[in-house]
């Protein structure tokens, strides 16, 4: 099932994400996904997230699919040149993976192999262009594909609370021009900024899923404020998280905050994308509190 079909039907699409382990045993990830994510439309599988080496996204997608979940295959341009990316897209099609998310990828210097070569032969925009080209039966070298071309719902990301939101909107427009079907956003804690962003983004006519993180505590929120681009947890939320450490630690405060953000933004977007960062167990409570 392509998630673009759900957007077309006007459904409010809920996705979450899982990160493959630094190893090859996936039982834990699959068990967790089945327990907490079964009510969710599709599950993103990150691609060596934050430039930290892990089991591959494509193989994880295949195993999740075999377990009955709908995976969204995240592809970054950091580790592979255009030949490898095109080849992996064909491999994904062979596995029946229909949903992908095209990203540029974090720089290698931010991860656990800082000396690795950053590839970036393509970027998010040219990768989307490549997907649409493959779907037309051609590759980037101008050669014909043999047999049926692949077909994907191809998503992209955007950062609505970035301090250079106009440059982000310009990039979003390039992604739309290159063929993006839908967007997932960086985590939002400032509904006002998101709503303002959506006022400008709606001209592109593409579905946008609100990015949501359940904050685990004041320290985590402060860390994101200092280190994570495009994410800002406002002072009142920080105070809320700091007020009762036990409550925050148990996930109660974080779920309340995330549910509030979803409720405030829901009329302006076409779905939510939850980045639980290990707190998958809180997703059912979050969806319930948010009224989804």
């Amino acid at each position, binding site marked *: 099932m392509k998630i673009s079909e759900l957007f077309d039907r006007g459904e409010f699409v809920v996705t979450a994400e899982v990160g493959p382990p630094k190893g090859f045993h996936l039982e834990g990830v699959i068990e967790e996904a089945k327990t907490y994510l079964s009510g969710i439309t599709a599950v993103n599988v990150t691609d060596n997230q934050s430039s930290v080496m892990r089991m591959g996204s494509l193989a994880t997608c295949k195993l999740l699919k075999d377990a009955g979940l709908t995976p969204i295959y995240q592809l970054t341009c950091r580790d592979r040149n*255009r030949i490898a990316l095109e080849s992996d897209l064909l491999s994904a099609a062979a596995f029946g993976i229909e949903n992908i998310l095209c990203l*540029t990828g*974090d*720089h290698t*210097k*931010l991860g656990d192999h800082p000396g690795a070569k*950053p590839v*970036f*032969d*393509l*970027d*998010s*925009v*040219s990768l989307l*262009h490549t997907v649409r080209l493959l779907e037309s039966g051609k590759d*980037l070298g101008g050669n014909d594909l043999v047999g049926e071309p692949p077909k994907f719902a191809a998503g992209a*990301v*955007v*950062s609505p609370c*970035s*301090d*250079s939101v*106009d*440059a*982000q909107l*310009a*990039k979003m*427009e*390039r992604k739309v*021009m*290159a063929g993006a079907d839908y967007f997932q956003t*960086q985590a939002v804690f400032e509904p006002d900024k998101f709503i303002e962003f959506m006022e400008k983004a709606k001209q592109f006519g593409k579905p946008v899923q609100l990015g949501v993180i359940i904050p685990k505590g004041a320290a985590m929120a402060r860390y994101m404020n200092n*280190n*994570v*681009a*495009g994410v800002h947890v406002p002072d009142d939320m920080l105070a809320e998280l700091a007020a009762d450490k036990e409550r925050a630690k148990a996930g109660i405060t974080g779920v309340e905050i995330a549910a509030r953000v979803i409720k405030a933004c829901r009329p302006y977007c076409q779905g939510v994308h939850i980045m639980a960062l290990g707190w998958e167990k809180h997703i059912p409570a979050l969806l319930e509190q948010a009224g989804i």
Partner: protein
Amino acid sequence: MLITELKSKESILSLVTGKVFIINCHGCKEVRFPEAEAEELEKELLASGKVTGVLTTDYICNPENLKLRLERRKTMIAEADAVLVLSCGVGVQSVAEFLPDKKVYAGCDTYRLPGFQGVTPLEVNCDQCGECFLNLTGGICPLTACSKSLVNGQCGGSKNGKCEVDPNMECGWERIYRRLEAVGRLDALKCPVQLRNYATDKDV
């Protein structure tokens, strides 16, 4: 060392739609500058009445030298809608930096040659990629100003205008966006999808 080649006449003429001031740099003796082709282009532009002035000099990468020469031609530059620079990528970026409110275009592509590189220590850098992107990016090189050398716009890793790879480095695409905004060229961001061509080396 490096080699500069004139971009195609069509691509240069498509940029020079209004009045233009031309700068030729005959710097670094080791550089092969397409002198004859540049002269021919210049003649054609002069005949069309579009040229407000021409400066043929050397080492426009030297800020003191550049400042002196451009200030003497302030009026001619003010009359022009754009400045066309026939030099290596460092020269184009030096002029763009000096004229923050002016459209500055690169008339050449810069190719790499083995051997030592330019002698003037500068903040700006040219990757000698052989497919100059400066005309799409307001005269700021995306290959050297962006830590990922992205050619299709800003990634999500800019925080407070800084690159997340190096907090002391300004986000190159933030600079490019502000520059395009200042010179009224944000339409450049609507150009077709850009793909690098790593095969340019073999053509030299």
